[in-house]
């Protein structure tokens, strides 16, 4: 009953196979999609993705087919596919589940991507905090090479593809796709200005597509079952499933893969088993860059657009439940502190602004903030939203902003207490 609505597409093999056994993966239908894709044209594969409606699972929700369609037709000596596995949003571990439990799924998906895009070289950029995942992926890549499923002339198709695991060095900003490119090139992890977009000028100046682990993991099933099948799952505009990872004051600190029309309420109460240690106060969805939402919005579906419409974000799908025993403002302060540590410092609004928002939250928590401070912080947050160079800085103020928006009373109490 409790798990009635769960639907495992991406986590289909979770705990059902030995992750590094290529045979067990093949027995469960592995590499069928790759064989099929190799018999299709690049345009056909992109068309299938278009029908599927698959959109990015890393947080930005960009249509995958569209991203691919910019790069696939470019004729150039080298293109790259990069898998973004720098899963840095606190409370998020969906990508790790896939890499640790079904590494061949990711390998198969990246090979399909490589074939579609004409990229013969791929990188999996795995965060430094995941040495175990890196080990498993390296083993799986070696096995796939030995089995002839990676390397030259895959399945006699004439297509060559090679994958390399690249370890991040513990920087949140390196989840930003252009910062990944800089990092792989051996430079300081800082975002690049766009345009040019990486799809045109990316790694080593070559066209490069960067997709999240979970996004890629959907692709074999779409190739096998068709785009139409996928488009019928979950929300219309953001179809498919989403892995949600639950943490905080929730009974089941677990993960679920659910259709995207599932509501936040179901995630927390049906799958999460409800709030523990107190009553529901707020939920932060999508990691530290996500908004803090009140109980009144829990009937919202988790899909990208529904979440955006209420001023929140699906983000990575992390669900952090906060009960009423916590000082919410203290939570917000801690989140604000996170960004002072993780801003790369390249652009002014993020470099300076994150610190100033944290200073503001400190003042609030210590009962020293004034109404004017609140007004300044709100103005600063807006400027950061609109002017920061990359998504990190644009989203960094979201927790503070949503806290002011949905829990403004708490600010007022603290300010008036002065």
């Amino acid at each position, binding site marked *: 009953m409790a798990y009635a609505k769960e639907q495992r597409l991406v986590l289909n093999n979770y705990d059902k196979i030995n992750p590094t056994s290529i045979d067990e993966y093949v027995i469960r239908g592995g590499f069928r999609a790759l064989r099929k894709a190799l018999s299709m044209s690049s345009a056909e594969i992109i068309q299938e993705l278009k029908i599927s409606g698959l959109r990015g699972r890393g947080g930005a929700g960009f249509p995958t087919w569209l991203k691919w369609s910019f790069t696939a037709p470019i004729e150039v000596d080298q293109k790259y596919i990069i898998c973004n596995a720098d899963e840095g949003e606190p409370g998020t571990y969906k990508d790790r589940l896939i890499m640790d439990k079904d590494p061949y799924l990711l390998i198969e998906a990246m090979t399909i991507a490589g074939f579609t895009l004409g990229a013969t070289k791929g990188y999996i950029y795995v965060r430094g905090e995941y040495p175990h995942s890196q080990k498993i992926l390296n083993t799986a890549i070696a096995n796939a090479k030995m089995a002839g499923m990676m390397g030259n002339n895959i399945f006699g198709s004439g297509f060559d593809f090679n994958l390399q695991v690249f370890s991040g060095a513990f*920087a949140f900003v390196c989840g930003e796709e252009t910062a990944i490119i800089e990092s792989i090139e051996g430079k*300081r992890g800082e975002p690049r*200005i766009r*345009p040019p977009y990486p799809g045109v000028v990316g790694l080593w100046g070559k066209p490069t597509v960067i997709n999240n682990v979970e996004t890629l993991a959907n692709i074999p099933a779409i190739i096998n079952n068709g785009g139409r099948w996928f488009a019928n799952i979950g929300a219309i505009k953001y179809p498919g499933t989403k892995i949600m990872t639950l943490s905080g004051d929730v009974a089941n600190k677990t993960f679920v893969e659910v259709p995207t029309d599932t509501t936040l309420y179901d995630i927390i109460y049906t799958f999460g088993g409800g709030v523990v240690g107190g009553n529901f106060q707020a939920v932060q969805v999508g990691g530290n860059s996500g908004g803090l939402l009140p109980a009144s919005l829990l009937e919202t579906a988790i899909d990208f657009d529904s979440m955006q419409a209420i001023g929140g974000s699906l983000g990575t799908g992390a669900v952090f439940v906060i009960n009423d025993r916590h000082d919410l403002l203290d939570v917000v302060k801690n989140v604000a502190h996170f*960004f*002072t*540590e*993780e*801003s*790369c*410092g*390249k*652009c*002014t*609004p*993020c*470099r*300076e*602004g*994150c*610190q*100033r928002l944290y*200073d503001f939250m400190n003042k609030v928590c210590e009962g020293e903030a004034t109404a004017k401070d609140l007004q*300044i912080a709100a*103005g*600063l947050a807006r*400027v950061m*939203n*609109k*002017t*920061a*160079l990359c998504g990190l800085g*644009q989203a960094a103020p979201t927790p503070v902003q949503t806290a002011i928006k949905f829990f403004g009373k708490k600010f007022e109490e603290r300010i008036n207490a002065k």
Partner: protein
Amino acid sequence: MDMVTAIIDGCGVEVAKGTTILEAAKTVGIKIPTLCYHPDQFIKANCRVCVVEVEGVQLLQAACATAVNEGMVVKTNTSAVRDARKTILELILAHHPQDCLHCIRNQKCELQTLASEYNIRDIRFDQVDRGLALDLTSPSIHRDPNKCIKCGRCIEVCERVQTVAVYSKYDRGFDVGVAPALNLGLGDVACINCGQCVLACPVGAIYENDQHDQVWDAINDPEKHVVCQMAPAIRVALAEEFGLNSGELQMGKIVAALRQIGFDKVMHTNFTADLTIIEEGNELLQRINNGGKLPMITSCSPGWIKFCEHNFPDFLENLSTCKSPQQMFGALVKTYYAEKSGIDPAKIYSVSFMPCTAKKYECARPEMNSSGYQDVDAVLTTRELARMIRESGIDIVNIAPEEFDAPMGIYTGAAVIFGATGGVMEAALRTVYEVATGDTLNDINFTAVRGMEGIKEATVNLAGTEVKVAVAHTTGNARKLLEAIRAGEKFYHFIEVMACPGGCIGGGGQPIGTINEKRQFRIDAIYEEDLGLPMRKSHENPAITQIYEEFLKTPLGHKSHELLHTHYTKRSLYPFSKEQL
């Protein structure tokens, strides 16, 4: 050319495809503020003060980085834009010392200008003092890291233009900073002291080691006989410090100003530039005729010398052994001049005005003491000279011009062009040709070696020998040239290298605001000056003939060797040891 049309603040603009909003706005008289933008550099788009509204786009767009698209509607002056710019400026200012009044860049600071233009009166964020130590380790360049606004312009010029790459960013977020590796001082790394980072810095975070107070002390000391020399690149740029166009200031007015400041003798580095040509020209002919090490490479630019010592130690024997004109002058002032005028060299204080920060390092090199004293006591940049003139209350624009003191103030046009890239080469060719062939040159203008092209090549027939020459400016171009020679791809007899873009006229001691466009103006002014002079070949300088007759006797002779020639030191890149720097 593909053109696109757009509307900026209600004005229709038609610009070439790829033009940025910033550039397009300029064409219709709309000024968009910038800080990290530099006309000679890549687009960085990190300061974000140039943001504008673009219709249909939710985020504000950086005007410096966004190309104009067909039909684009841009608004540069909305309340959202002004608010964003003000907020960003306040964020920077709250994390930047508020010592404008006594900052070395007061009134020449891009941040200060913007703060004024945007009417910043009240900074809404608490002032944060970073409390970082000043970097005073370099004899040429000092840094106040507290003032750094992290625009990255110094990093780019050092890494991309000069390929020296001493600067990088450290730490993250609010604490991010720019410094040499391991936070070492500039004096403790392979910095070549060229000062291009000083010119690139929009604020007062990087600046010359200002020594003009020491010169005041010398002038005020009745025991001291204070003499000065001035490099050819000074005149054309000093004009800009006083609101004139490059080159508009008459030489005689500067001479008069220097006398009014209190210098006992005002002479010209051009004299020893002519002398350099005689020595270096003879050295070249000797190397060519006697199978010496080729190519011979010029040695006037101390930034280039240090670059070579660190990066191309295998080319040290290729460097001409001639000292730079500044150091030849220094050595002669405390010997030849002292002797001639009967002044105790111990009492002579020798000041040099240079467009260059590396000259401060050069004069302090331990081997630069062939007179028995430190040959040049103090080097001041064009900027410091301007400060002394202002501080003295001299109206340099209207002062009556005066003449240089003889004999070390007499010079030719060949010496004047030392200030521009290709100038030393051209000056050398004018003399070497006539000395080697015994013929008179019909056309003394070697235009192939002039101009802002990074690497220039030419071939000159010298009495039957096809002499191949090359000219490089910026150490980045020098690196390219030397790598090609090292790889055996290129061969030359003679190479001129100047460390700074455009040569000395673009030096790191020149006025703030030195950009390539200005460099071209100054180059034009230099060649104009050469053209107007009665003597344009170094070997025609009568004062040069005189010094050989009276003192030096013969080029490359014993006395020349002792006073005018030098040697070089192999230096490491990393790890650094103090002895090697």
